[in-house]
């Protein structure tokens, strides 16, 4: 995932470099020159700046096996961004009450509350905070519930949006994650307000554990696909 994020940056930078035909700077102070920094990042950066670790250490999704997961001392989740075509493994890094923060070695994190995304960091377009108590109530059988989302706009100001959510569909749909099959129900929760709507899918077992989900985070990032390993 780091690689792809890095490439996004590269795409933003490309016109700069084309326009200026840069040379890399050298010496400790050269790093203070924004132009020199750019050139360094683009020539050696992608490999040097930790784009690889998650893939090499933990393996990308297809390289992970059940044995690898079992052998690790910490829990793992897989987080994918379908719009960007990337997936990364995230390690459990901390908990604040029911909210667990999962983090990748290249500096991306997702915070989940009972499997529902309440925050992201390092994706560029990030969910700063969320209140998912309404969605949790809906999944437990309530007719409708609220969802509050906070993001930062381009000026670093907080934007708060409120949605109303309800279950639109429930259907038995077992999932298999790393050779392990779970007897789950797929629940479609649709949230909306005056400016738009989105649908989240949760694959939930009888005990209420969400094993797989596809949750809309915010425009600019799109959906996160989360699997509990």
């Amino acid at each position, binding site marked *: 995932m780091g690689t792809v*994020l890095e490439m*996004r*940056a590269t795409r*933003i*930078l*490309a*016109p*700069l470099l084309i*326009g*200026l*035909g*840069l*040379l890399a*700077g*050298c*010496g*400790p*102070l*050269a790093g*203070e*020159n*924004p*132009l*020199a*920094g*750019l050139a360094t*990042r683009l020539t050696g950066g992608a490999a040097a700046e930790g784009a690889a670790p998650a893939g090499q250490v933990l393996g990308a999704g297809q390289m992970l096996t059940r044995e690898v997961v079992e052998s690790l001392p910490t829990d793992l989740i897989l987080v994918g961004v379908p719009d960007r075509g990337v997936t990364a493994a995230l390690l459990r890094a*901390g908990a*604040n009450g029911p*909210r667990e923060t999962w*983090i990748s070695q290249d*500096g*991306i*994190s997702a*915070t989940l509350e009972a499997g529902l995304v*309440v925050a992201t*960091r*390092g994706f*560029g*377009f*990030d969910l*700063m*905070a969320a*209140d998912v108590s309404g969605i949790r109530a809906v999944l437990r059988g309530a007719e409708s519930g609220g969802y*509050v*989302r*906070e*993001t*930062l*706009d*381009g*000026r*670093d*100001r*907080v934007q*708060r949006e409120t949605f109303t959510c309800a279950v639109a569909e429930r259907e038995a749909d077992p999932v298999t994650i790393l050779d392990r099959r779970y007897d789950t129900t797929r629940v479609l929760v649709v949230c909306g307000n005056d*400016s738009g709507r989105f649908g989240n899918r949760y694959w939930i077992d009888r005990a209420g554990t969400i094993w797989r989900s596809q949750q809309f985070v915010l*425009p*600019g*990032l799109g959906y996160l696909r989360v699997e509990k390993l």
Partner: protein
Amino acid sequence: MQVCRFSIVLAALVGSTGPMAGQTLDWPGSYTLYGTPGLLDMPTAGSDPDGRIAVTLGHFDGQLRGTITFQVTDRLSGSFRYGRNDDYVPEGSEDDPLFDRSFDLRYRLLDEGPLLPAVAVGLQDFLGTGVYSGEYLVATKTLTPQLRVTGGVGWGRFGSFNGVDNPFGLDDRPVYTVGDPGGDVNFEQLFRGDMAAFGGVEYRVTDGLSLIAEYSSDGYVTEIANGDFTHESPWNIGLSYRPRPNYELGLAYMYGSELALRGTITLDPTSRNSGTGLDSAPLPVFVRGADARAARTWDRGAIPDDRIVSAITTALAADGIAVRGVELSDRAVRVRYENTRYRSEAQAMGRVARVLTNAVPGSVETFRLEPVRRGIPLSQATLSRSEIERLENRPGAVEASLAAAGFGAPGPTAGLTDTGSFEGGFKWGLAPYGELGLFDGNDPVRGEIGIEATARYDATPNLTFAGAIRKSVVTSFDDPGSISDSTLPEVRRDRAVYAVEGDPGIEYLTMASHGRLGADLYGRATVGYLERMYGGVSAELLWKPVDSRLALGAELNYAVKRDYDMLLGFQDYDVVTGHLSAYYDFGAGWHGQVDVGRYLAGDVGATVGLDREFENGWSVGGYFTLTDVSAEDFGEGSFDKGIRVTVPIDWVLGQPTRREVSATLTSLSRDGGARLNVDGRLYEVIRDGHEPALAEGWGRFWR
């Protein structure tokens, strides 16, 4: 020290893809050949979105206009224009072709409603020589999703074709005589002279393509009289094509005789390609158990202080934050640090606070954070650990954590354990630089690319020796041109000579000391080759309480003019110059500054500046300087004025960095009202760590 100037700004323009999905306007208006919201040559009552910058280049029949338009507020916009007019003065005369700078203002009086049109009033070229001057009152109404009509009345240029007598009886409108200094507010011209009607229609063919027809009330009277401008018809037709939201191309057939071409790039400082930026995720907050929270102290035998200090220092170093000192007690921790990575000091505070939740024992409830810049502790923010634990990732956390934070003066240096993170000594660098000179005399664009060698020796956190030498590789600064006559000493007029002869040249070579002199008092002293054109001594005092929106400063300099070769020698001109300054943060992003004092040419006067600063680091503003130099002595432009833009590099790159680039576009840089450029002026060093700036940037505390 700023290394490259316009290059990044221009690259940002090219690199930006502008507003994000969901921000598209119903039917964005197009721009005129003057770079203003409008039809082809005539304005409409439309406005850009708040904060937008539109850069336009338009050309037809001897008219070349480069314009930057900034939507200052929702209703007010302003433009700065550099134009070349081949027909304004008779061919062969000294001023042919005529190069001219001009400023406009526009204000939208009424918003478009279901029945009423939008209405705007505009002053074009109200502050320049008056070559393009014209005023208008215009109304625009969208009749169907495909059809928009505009009608208005104009004076000056906009009243020069098929005009009628002035309805207010103000028939006398003095004309600009080439060679006059110009540059004053043209009060004797505004809304005077003949009045004429103009109008037009826009038809939207597709989302990106519109057809435009207009009836122009500009007769190009002077251009016809003095040049070979052909005016066959008042009707102009054209099209506007917008292949992407931020790029617009225009093609038109003007005045029955000429093809016109126009390109406009728009840039929205309020939107960012990279979202909140690609800054890596912070360490999550560690939440204490009930026992740890209730503890009054901890077992220092099991967890010695130095291990805690070392953990804090190491963890924050990985985040680009150098911890200078730590003070630990049973219930509180004080950390003094220098943030070298994040533009927003609030974001750095959030990072420090989260690391502290992981690093200090549970009995420590209060975090006191002291940001440092140039060796000066700026302030102390007091945060409650329990609140940090409670608010992480919760809606409302930004407001609540700001409300719970306390801001005050930093504590004493005594009591802090030195972490040894200050790396003094010698550092050097070799890097490319790019420089762009815009609107220099009759050379609208000049550029240079070369190599810059920099060196710095930090003797103490407060005392720095620094220098830089540049050598150009490719340059078009090869001809200084002629230096115009003036009764004033050559204090800035000859700056082009430095660019030509000072290659290689010493950009600066200084010893600078910054320090805190009292509770709210800061000081700076700088000695050496201060800038390209002057060396000498500069001393400054600044009074700025941490929670104050007001700051007061005093600066005194003795400056000697450097040799043109930009080596170590000096010329036979020296001056004592200095200012008393007042800075005020009005809130809502408005920031003002007034400087009163003596300028480089020995003239006495004041500079007034007003900037719109966005929370994300962008700033766009303007200033003017009035001194006891008369308009005649000042020369073209009458007095110094200009616009200035600051672009944060993290906005451009998406990567966290404290770098920014600033550019100033002046009407014409001359000798009156010229100030010394000294690096490290106190206000800019101090203010980011004080309460008003921290509060404005608090959105990034949790990022």
